[in-house]
């Protein structure tokens, strides 16, 4: 898959990093401002799709990207389930227990175990959407025309 023209390449050099940082901001502040894990995850996936579309298939060595991203996605799902199970052992014996201290409302470190959930769910959603897009690009490149 060919890349795009020079104007698009220069624009993505300026903007893609800022969109990535904005996605991380939306994930980490998920318990204070609108957003959360899902919104930040799709924003990060959007910035990665932008870089792939602008620079073309040969730039990224696509098959190795796909293998690494599937590992990241599986790890993130396992971490979500492990945090939920860890709540089983502290405090009262219920699944999905919110066991870390809650703190003051509307501070950055508060709300128990919810910021950890946000980070892992956001990573998993971003990896899933990026894998779906990458397999489409690899299919179009490797199929005989």
């Amino acid at each position: 898959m060919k890349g795009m023209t020079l104007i698009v390449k220069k624009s993505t050099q300026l903007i893609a990093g800022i969109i990535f940082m904005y996605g991380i901001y939306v994930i980490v502040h998920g318990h204070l401002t609108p957003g959360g894990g899902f919104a930040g995850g799709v924003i990060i996936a959007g910035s990665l799709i932008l870089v792939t579309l602008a620079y073309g298939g040969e730039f990224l060595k696509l098959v190795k990207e796909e293998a690494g991203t599937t590992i990241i996605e599986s790890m993130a799902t396992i971490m979500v389930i492990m945090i939920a199970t860890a709540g089983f052992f502290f405090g009262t014996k219920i699944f999905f227990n919110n066991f870390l201290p809650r703190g003051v409302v509307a501070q950055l470190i508060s709300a128990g175990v919810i910021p950890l959930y946000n980070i892992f769910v956001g990573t998993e959603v971003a990896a899933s959407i990026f894998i779906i897009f990458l397999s489409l690009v690899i299919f179009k490149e490797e199929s005989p025309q």
Partner: protein
Amino acid sequence: MELSISIIIGLMILGALYAIHAKDLLSSVIACGIVGYSLVICFLLLKAPDLAIVQIVVDTITLIIMVAVVLDSSREESYSKLDTKGYISAATGILMIVVLLYFFAISVQSLDVLGTSSLRMANYYIEGAAQKTGSANLVTGVVFDFRGYDTMGEAVVLVTAVLGVLTILRLKGKK
């Protein structure tokens, strides 16, 4: 509020009618994207900023995937005359629409007017959520603490969908 939302939904209906009758496939896909963007305006009017952020990015990604499918094909809907099968399916469609609309108009009388709350659990969630979960964003508190099973189910559904797409679009087997 109800008047402005009804006007926007009316424009969405016109866009949807164009999307299913357009002759060019690329125009139909772009009209589907525009219906999704109008939904973002509806979410902002209904005071739901979380949903607006998610819907605007998800609709852009859906548009990219649909255009990638449509672009390297013959971009026209091959239109042939209506034969007997076409008439039967059109008649079935109109019959289903009339029956469903009638039953919906009966059952929507039991809902309250738009603006008063129709759900009984709303007060319990609003009063207790900030103190019990400790998060200032009530929607995040509900999604990750009160209804954590739904989030776990959603994570599993995403992994399954990725497995499905990887299996369908695989060209070379392992040696």
